[in-house]
C-alpha cells in the first residue's frame, strides 16, 4: 500500500509547485494590467483602457510610451535579480547571498559615479549604463580570478566580494566628496534605483542580457540542487562543482549587471524572492527558479506602482519602496515559519 502512496505523494508535491507557478503567472497578469491602467496622470481607469486600443493621442502615448515600458522593465529587473539571487544562494551555499553580495552593486555604483562626475561632454544615460555595467562585470571578474588563483570555494568568493564592495564604495564616496552638488544629487538618485527613464531600446538590451544566460541556469537546475548538499556529495554524484560554480557566477553576474545598469540599485528583491519561493515550493531549482522569478517580478511591479500612485504626481524611487513593502512581509514569514528553515 505504501509504495503507491509515496509515489503519488511525490507527484502531488510537484503538481502543487506547478500550481503555484500558474497562480503567480495569473497574479502577475492582473497586477500588470492594474499598473497599466493606473498612474499619476489624470487619465482615469476607463480612459486608460480605451487608450490601449487607440492609434494616436496623448492617452495612447502615456499608456504605450510611459507606462508599458516601465512595467516591462519592472518585470525584467524583478525576474533577473531574483534568478541571480537564487543562483548566487545556491552556488555560494549561503542563504544570505544576494545579487549584490559579491560587490557587483558597488562596482556598478562606482561605474555610474565615474560617468556622472567625469562624463563631461560625453555624459548621457548610455554612458552611465555602459560604465556601471563595465565595473559590475569587473568586480565579478576580479572575484573569479581570485577564486581561480586560490580555491573556488564559496568562502573565498564571499570574502573577496566583501573586499571588493568596500573598495568600490570608498572610491565612490571619494568621488562624491569631490563632485559638485548637482553631481552628488544625481549619484544619490542613481543609488535609489529608478524605472522612470526606461524606453523600448533599454528594454531590448536588458532582455537580451537576461534571456541569453537564462536557459543555461535553468538547465543546471538539477545540478544546483546537488550543490546544496555539499561539494563532496555533489562530486560523488557526478557534478563538476568548480565548473558549475564558475559558470553560475558568470551568468548570474551578467544578469545582475544588466538589470542594474539602467535602473540603479534595486535592493532586497534578489535576497528575499528566493526565500519566499523556497517556502512555497521547496529547494528543487527546477521549480524554485521560475517561482522566485515570478515573486520578484510581482514585488518590483507592486513597489513601482505604489511609488507612482501613492504621492502622485511625486514618484518615490523604486529602490526605497521595495524594501518598505518587502521587509514587513519578510518579517511576517520569518515569524510564521514552523520548520527549522522554510
Amino acid at each position, binding site marked *: 500500500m*505504501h*509504495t503507491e*502512496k*509515496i*509515489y503519488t*505523494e*511525490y507527484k502531488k*508535491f510537484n503538481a502543487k509547485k506547478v500550481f503555484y507557478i500558474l497562480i503567480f503567472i495569473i497574479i502577475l497578469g492582473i497586477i500588470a494590467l492594474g499598473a497599466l491602467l493606473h498612474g499619476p496622470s489624470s487619465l482615469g481607469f476607463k480612459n486608460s483602457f480605451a487608450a490601449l486600443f487607440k492609434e494616436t493621442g496623448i492617452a495612447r502615448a502615456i499608456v504605450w510610451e510611459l507606462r508599458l515600458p516601465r512595467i516591462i522593465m519592472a518585470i525584467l529587473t524583478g525576474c533577473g535579480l531574483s534568478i541571480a539571487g537564487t543562483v548566487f*544562494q*545556491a552556488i555560494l*551555499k*549561503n*542563504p544570505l547571498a544576494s545579487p549584490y553580495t559579491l560587490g557587483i552593486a558597488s562596482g556598478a555604483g562606482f561605474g555610474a559615479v565615474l560617468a556622472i562626475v567625469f562624463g563631461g561632454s560625453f555624459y548621457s544615460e548610455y554612458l552611465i549604463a555602459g560604465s556601471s555595467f563595465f565595473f559590475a562585470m569587473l568586480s565579478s571578474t576580479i572575484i573569479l580570478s581570485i577564486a581561480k588563483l586560490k580555491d573556488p570555494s564559496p568562502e573565498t568568493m564571499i570574502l573577496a566580494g566583501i573586499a571588493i564592495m568596500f573598495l568600490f564604495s570608498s572610491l565612490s564616496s571619494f568621488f562624491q566628496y569631490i563632485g559638485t552638488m548637482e553631481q552628488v544629487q544625481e549619484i544619490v538618485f542613481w543609488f535609489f534605483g529608478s524605472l522612470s527613464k526606461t524606453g523600448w531600446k533599454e528594454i531590448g538590451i536588458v532582455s537580451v542580457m537576461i534571456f541569453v544566460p537564462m536557459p543555461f541556469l535553468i*538547465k543546471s*537546475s*538539477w*545540478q544546483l*540542487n*546537488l550543490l*546544496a*548538499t*555539499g561539494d*563532496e*556529495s555533489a*562530486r*560523488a*554524484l*557526478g*557534478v*563538476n562543482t568548480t565548473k558549475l560554480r564558475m559558470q553560475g557566477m558568470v551568468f548570474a553576474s551578467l544578469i545582475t549587471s544588466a538589470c542594474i545598469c539602467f535602473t540603479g540599485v534595486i535592493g532586497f528583491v534578489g535576497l528575499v524572492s528566493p526565500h519566499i519561493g*523556497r517556502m512555497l515550493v*521547496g*529547494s*528543487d531549482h*527546477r521549480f524554485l527558479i521560475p517561482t522566485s522569478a515570478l515573486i520578484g517580478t510581482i514585488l518590483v511591479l507592486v513597489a513601482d506602482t505604489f511609488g507612482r500612485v501613492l504621492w502622485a504626481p511625486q514618484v518615490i524611487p523604486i529602490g526605497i519602496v521595495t524594501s518598505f513593502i518587502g521587509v514587513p512581509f519578510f518579517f511576517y514569514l520569518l515569524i510564521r515559519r514552523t*520548520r*527549522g*528553515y*522554510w
Partner: protein
Amino acid sequence: MLKVHGLEFKYKDRDILKKIEIEIKKGEILSILGPNGTGKTTLLKCIAGIIKPQKGSFSIGSKNMLDIKRNDLAKRISYVPQSSPSKFPITVFEAVLMGRSPYIMWRPSEKDLKIVVNVLKFLKLEEFASKNFEQLSGGEKQKVLIARAVAQDTEYLLMDEPTSNLDLKHQLEIMEMISNMVKTQNVSAVFAMHDLNLASRFSDRIVMLSKGEIFCTGKPEQVITVENIKIVYGVNATIKNNNGVLYVFPDKQINRQNSNPINNPNIKKAQAEVFCDAKTE
C-alpha cells in the same frame, strides 16, 4: 574487480597517502582501518573521484577510472559521506532521488521515481518519504544517505564511517543491511572504520593503514592482532575469539617513539608475515 595501484596523495607537500595498492573483489566487504589522520577518508575520496591523487591509477576491470568523466564514474562508484548537511530544505524523497543524478539530465524519469520508491521500501524509510531531511535523527539521516547511494545503483559502494553517529541498534541494523545487500546483489562495499569489532565481524577483508601507508592486508583475524594494534594504534589490547567473531578490548595506551612504525625492522618482519598469511588464504 577494482584495483588501486601506486596511489599517492599530497596536500601541500605533506604526504597523506603513499604506495597504496588495493584490490576490491565483487561481492566482498573491505574495511579500511587505522588511527585518526592516517588517510582513510582521503583514500575513499580518491576512489570516489572527489579529489584527484597526484600519482597512481585505479581501474575497474581493464578500464582506467582516472580518465573517465565524473558523471560516468558516478554510475559505477557511490560514496556515502559521514554527514551531508543540507543548507536548504529537501524532503527525504528528494534526497534519495539525488542518487539518480548521474542518469538525470533535467527531469527524473518514471524509472528513476520507481527505483527511489523501491529503495525507500527496501531500507524501511517509507514513512519518512515526505519529511524534511534536516528533521531526522542521526541514524535516520545516515540511512537516507545510504539509500541515496543504493539508488545510485553502482557496483562499488564507499562509506566513510557509516556507524560513527549511530547507537548500538542502528549500527547493527545498517551493517547487517549492507552486508545482506553485498551478498545478494553482487556489489562491493568499502568502509572506512574506527570500530574494530564491527569491522572484524562484517568485513571479508581488512586493510590497515598507518601514516598514509598500507600496514597490512588480510582477513580480519590476520589483521586485527594484539601485535598490530600495539604498533599501529599504540594501544595494548586483548582479543577474544568467540566462534570466529573477534572481540577487541583496549587495555592501556602505550608510549612509543614518534617514528613511522613501518620503518622499524621488527615491524617490517611482522608485516611481511601478515602479507604471507594473506596470500595463502
